[in-house]
């Protein structure tokens, strides 16, 4: 038997170690399974869109085809957008439980639609999801503490340290072997379930190869921490208590304090103000001459300026024009709001250098495209799609073309698929 197999035998004879490793592996498997189930639920919900949408649109088409009025078509048609979970989303669900991944929009003012949420149970979201990122960031350090708090002090307390060190292979090398072995086993308990789940979910090899060392590095941070505390030559009990206290600070208290500090340093109240202002802008159009609205609209969108002048009766092109004017008038607030959100996220990201727990969580949610950046990116894609929707309907409205049943099929459809280039996405975000 080699020295390594000897150490392995010693390790698996210790009940605490075996129980701890088995428990960690079970938790990792459970979290991967739970994450994959959640992602499957989200995929199923997205897959169910076309059927529901077809039914809804065909009813609108039935109604509109009586008048062939493009305005009614634009007004009554909801168009679905969705944010498909990335292959890695199972490992870090991030914000996907609280921010919508399906949103239907109309060609009306977007600022009154884009902040809408989906139905979710806030009490379930409150404690956070049980995903792989949680097991890694929150729980794995506790297992490191359980396995490493008495690495040396345990031998000292058992009275073996002196005689072990007196053996040629029993000194620092022995502790190195034990550290490496425990590290490798902890890593395997986390990495194997993750890698299998990731391969199953179709995560690219490069991402898996990035996260596997990340797991090892995060464990190493805590192992190094335990070694540092171990150098103080305190008792095993004191080591365990100190390490658990450090865990509390680094994983729970630090991030919560930072959240308070960041939200204070970067105040964001524009959200509701945008909604209020946009409504005011939109509805104001009813109280001013309609030509004024059209002038403003044509100034910003000259390509429709050749459209026939408004008659005395209601015309939807005026209606849609003031909706778009409303959006455009709050554009600055929207930009400021968005900048605020990005600043908050950037502040949290820079905190990664101080709090490895935050770093790992941030990195995982970034790679999985489940963070605030991903949420904003989804909003950008909705904005792009909404732009195409407007263009499409304006083509009928401003040239008074009739909108037939066939035209419903010509409406732009949301491009749900994304190209996942995680490395570059992450590096850009940095």
């Amino acid at each position, binding site marked *: *038997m080699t020295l390594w197999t*000897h150490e392995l*035998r010693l390790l698996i*004879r210790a009940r605490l170690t075996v129980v701890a490793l088995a428990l960690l592996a079970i938790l990792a498997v459970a979290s991967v399974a739970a994450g994959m189930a959640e992602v499957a639920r989200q995929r199923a919900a997205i897959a169910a869109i076309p059927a529901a949408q077809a039914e809804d649109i065909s009813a609108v088409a039935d109604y509109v085809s009586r008048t062939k009025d493009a305005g009614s078509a634009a007004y009554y048609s909801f168009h679905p957008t969705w944010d498909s979970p990335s292959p890695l989303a199972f490992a870090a669900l991030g914000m996907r439980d609280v921010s919508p991944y399906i949103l239907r929009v109309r060609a009306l003012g977007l600022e009154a639609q884009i902040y809408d949420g989906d139905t979710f149970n806030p009490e379930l979201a409150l404690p956070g999801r049980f995903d792989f990122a949680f097991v890694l960031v929150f729980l794995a350090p506790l297992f490191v503490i359980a396995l490493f708090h008495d690495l040396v002090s345990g031998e000292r307390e058992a009275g073996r340290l002196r*005689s072990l060190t*007196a053996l040629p*292979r*029993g*000194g620092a090398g022995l502790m190195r072997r034990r550290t490496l072995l425990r590290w490798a086993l902890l890593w395997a308990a986390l990495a194997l379930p993750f890698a299998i789940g990731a391969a199953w979910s179709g995560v690219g090899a490069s991402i898996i190869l990035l996260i596997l060392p990340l797991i090892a590095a995060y464990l190493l941070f805590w192992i190094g921490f335990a070694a540092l505390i171990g150098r103080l030559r305190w008792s095993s009990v004191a080591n365990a208590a100190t390490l658990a206290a450090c865990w509390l600070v680094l994983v729970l208290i630090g991030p919560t304090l930072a959240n308070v500090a960041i939200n204070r340093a970067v105040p964001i109240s524009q959200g509701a103000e945008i909604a209020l202002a946009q409504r005011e802008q939109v509805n104001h159009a009813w109280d001013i001459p309609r030509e004024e609205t059209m002038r403003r609209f044509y100034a910003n969108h000259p390509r429709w300026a050749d459209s026939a002048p408004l008659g005395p009766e209601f015309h939807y092109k005026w209606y849609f024009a003031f909706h778009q004017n409303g959006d455009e008038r709050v554009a600055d607030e929207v930009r400021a709001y968005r900048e605020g959100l990005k600043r908050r996220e950037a502040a949290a990201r820079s905190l990664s250098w101080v709090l490895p727990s935050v770093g790992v969580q941030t990195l995982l949610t970034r790679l999985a495209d489940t963070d605030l950046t991903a949420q904003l990116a989804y909003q950008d894609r909705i904005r792009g799609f909404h732009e195409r929707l407007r263009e499409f309907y304006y083509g009928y409205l401003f040239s008074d073309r009739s909108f037939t049943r066939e035209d419903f099929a010509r409406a732009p459809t949301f491009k749900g698929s994304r190209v996942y280039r995680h490395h570059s996405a992450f590096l850009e975000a940095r």
Partner: protein
Amino acid sequence: MNHFGAPPILIDGLTVAYGDHRVLDELSLHVPAGSITALLGGNGAGKSTTLATLLGFVRAQAGTVLVSDVDPGADPDGARRKIAYLPENVALYEHLTAVENADYLLALSDERKERGVITDALAAAGLQQRAWDQRLGGFSKGMRQKVAVAVALLREVPVLLLDEPTSGLDPRATADFNALVSAVRDRGTAVLMVTHDLLSAADVADRIGFLEAGRIVEEVEAVGAERFDVRALHARFAVGTERHAA
């Protein structure tokens, strides 16, 4: 084994001090191959520090320490490769069996032994066969020590260091242990035991050194079949410890 070259344990003018306090004060001690030297001394005489220096745990301020020509201060691992060490309180792994413990400790000493060789050594150390494959959880101190002795026996090294080996053993176990140590000596090993068990030392040692305040104040060699005059030794030891206490 070189009976004619430098002795496996060679200490010359060894001085170890913690701050102003000299624990070892120009200590000199040679233990030739195939002999047993007992260091007798009261608490604080420097016995443990002598062993710790040989094992490379403590660095000498002055003097020469060589373990089979290796300086433990410069190359502790090299020195430890030459030493089998039996601590005062033998602590082993409770959740391993006797054989597994021996196997493991030998592996940490860079030695591989077949199971048969290990069980032979356990038997030679006086451990009954039914205990070989039992976990150490229920072992008595004597039984634990037998496992440790078996490991020491199996390590074919030139130096054996014993730290209070007979404390806590009953007379019968002490006699058994002494017989084992004699057998090791007869293989050509240089044995150094530090103890305050005068009777045991007299029984087994070839030479006895009296350690007081970090130096050997007197050395007695065994002569003939009578070996030592135990009474005289006892009187000498009592004086030494009293002097130290005063």
